[in-house]
């Protein structure tokens, strides 16, 4: 009887130790749900959702503290993806958080820039380069279009430029059944 209990206890201890070791050794870094939500968010880091970035918003969604329709850059598509991920209803973008806009990048008018570095401090993704009293410029490829650099500029030299379609980024359109072929365009 006693031996049986001892064996059981020993087994429990060994198993517990193994489990404990495994938990430490193979611990999942971070919260997978937050990661998954964050992966769906557009990473514009604009704060329009009411949180200081996409990750905090993801955490809030995961905790149930925020709704899924607060991210304007993600737009309808983003809400749909979140709804899919979380098994929730798709709902329209909440108007108080903003509206979906075409993608744009910030552009600094280098003639006007006074080199105050305020925009550098505002940019969440280090997309602006420059030094004090030097002209600043935006690395367009790195700019997420969050617009956070626009208000701090004391001389209003930052504007948002819509991203234009190029031959390389052009997309074939969804085929639609043509009712009437377009007229000839031969000059």
């Amino acid at each position, binding site marked *: 009887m006693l031996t049986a209990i001892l064996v059981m206890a020993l087994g429990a201890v060994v198993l517990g130790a193994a489990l404990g070791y495994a938990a430490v050794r193979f611990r999942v870094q971070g919260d997978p749900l937050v990661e998954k939500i964050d992966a769906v*968010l557009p990473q514009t880091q604009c704060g329009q959702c009411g949180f200081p970035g996409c990750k905090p918003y993801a955490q809030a969604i995961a905790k149930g503290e925020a709704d899924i329709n607060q991210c304007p850059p993600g737009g309808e598509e983003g809400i749909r993806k979140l709804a899919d991920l979380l098994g929730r209803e798709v709902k329209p973008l909440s108007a108080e958080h903003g509206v979906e806009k075409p993608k744009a990048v910030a552009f600094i008018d280098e003639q006007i820039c006074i080199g105050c570095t305020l925009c550098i401090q505002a940019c969440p993704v280090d997309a602006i380069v420059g030094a004090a009293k030097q002209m600043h410029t935006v*690395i367009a490829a790195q700019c997420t279009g969050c617009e956070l650099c626009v208000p701090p500029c004391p001389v209003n030299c930052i504007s948002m430029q819509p991203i234009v379609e190029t031959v390389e980024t052009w*997309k*074939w359109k969804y*085929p639609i*059944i043509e009712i009437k*072929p377009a007229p000839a365009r*031969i000059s």
Partner: protein
Amino acid sequence: MRQLFDFNGGVKPDYHKDASVQRPIAVSPAPAFLVIPLHQSIGGTPRPLVAPGDHVLKGQRIGAADGNLSAAVHASTSGTVSAVEMRRMPHPSGLSALCVVIETDGKDEWGERQPFDYRNRPREETRDYLRDAGIVGLGGAVFPSHLKLAPGKQGSLDTLVINGAECEPFITCDDLLMRERAAGIVRGIRIMRELLAAHRVLIGIEDNKPQAIAAMQAAVSGSGESDMEIVAIPTRYPAGGAKQLIRVLTGIEVPHGKRSTDYGVQCFNVGTAYAIHEAIDLGQPLISRIVTVAGNVAAPRNYEVLLGTPMRAVMALAEPLPDTDRIIMGGPMMGVPMPGDEVPVVKATNCILAGSRKLFPPPPPEMPCIRCGECAKACPADLQPFELYWFARAKIFGKAQEYHLFDCIECGCCAYVCPSRIPLVDYYRFAKSEIWAREAEKEAADKAREHYEFRQQREEREKQEKAARLAAKTAAGREKAAVALASVTSAESATAAPAASPEEDAKKALIAAALARARAQQAQPANTTGLTPEQEAEIAAIEARRAAMREEIRKQARPHLPPDN
């Protein structure tokens, strides 16, 4: 007779090739203005080397390859650069890209031309030379040839396949090139063969081109090349697809996304071979190509056209019929519609096909897919096109990829046979570009996340450092004050000798604590010494990111021009 292999599927449309092979290749005259797009090959956009007002000679480099995955562009004739600006591209989008506009001077004055002694130069140099000569695949894919001219890991290549199949209806430019310039093609093949250290060469030509086969045969035997074999292959579209031709000649199937050199084969178009011959033996970069003008024209023919010539000018030579309502670049199976007739002939232009409602009647209305399987029978990539169609149409892109959407070569066989008249390939093009766009977006988001997290880390670290500095400063200040105070009090203590007040004791303790903290922090400076390997790796990664950032800034420095319309 060599044993040939077969590929599944394929179709036999009407070939319409006879009309344009009746007369020899003619030279299309230089127009008043050449519009030479800088971006004419797969890969990056070449940098413009000229500015408005510059005088250029024929063959002068006007765009330098952007990195190695790109090829240079050249002035097709002599003249004056009148602009470097956005012009409409020969692309279905109708969008514009940077072009060098040259006002030709009619003198057609060559710059310096020097044969390249590739035998006595390292292969690497020859490849760079070909890149700077702007040589790209002329079969239509315009992939920079120098990138394909490196032998695989084993240092040699089993089979060099030369593509003279030309399976697209209407197009005959390779046929005529082989008939008229076989010797030059064979020279070019010889050069490629040496660069690739290829054991054997197989030249595949569809058996509906007996004259081209005869001419090539004569050229091969005349050149004394051994192990170069002309193989007549059965005529069936798309036998001229690189993968299909390799399969027919060698039995090897090169999967999508794999380099064919890893399978011991490499495939080049006959036009590319000829261009390489011109570049190496004559020192002439790629400034012209043979273009078939066919379709709804009175006098279909092949022309040697300077790159940058407006399509309108070339078409006029073949007398388009009045009911012409569209221009197609390429053949009727895979060609793309042009946004207008002023767009220039580029390296990819193997054919200018004039269309009309009579020649290519608009398809009858699309019916639902009845899953008849005709498309699957016709698909040379062994796909199930109707499944791809279903997923593409429903925008279930993940599934489409699982069913190998990207193995589709867009040959159009499926749409050709579909009894329901579904524009199947349009759905695949749509799905592919949508998937590409999403991947690019995803990549950008990942990068943004990385930058954001990096910045967060940095801010955190800066905050800590600041706090530390601040603490150290206050600690130092208080210590000084304490010392001063101590001297005063000790002087005073001689007279008054009051015991240290409890208040002062507390202050001292505080100072001591701050001092200890500051020392501890000094002993462990934030990020210079005593780093773990992980931290070092992290720093290296950060440095790499910085380098990438610098690179991006450099790219940004390029002109940022709006489109013209």
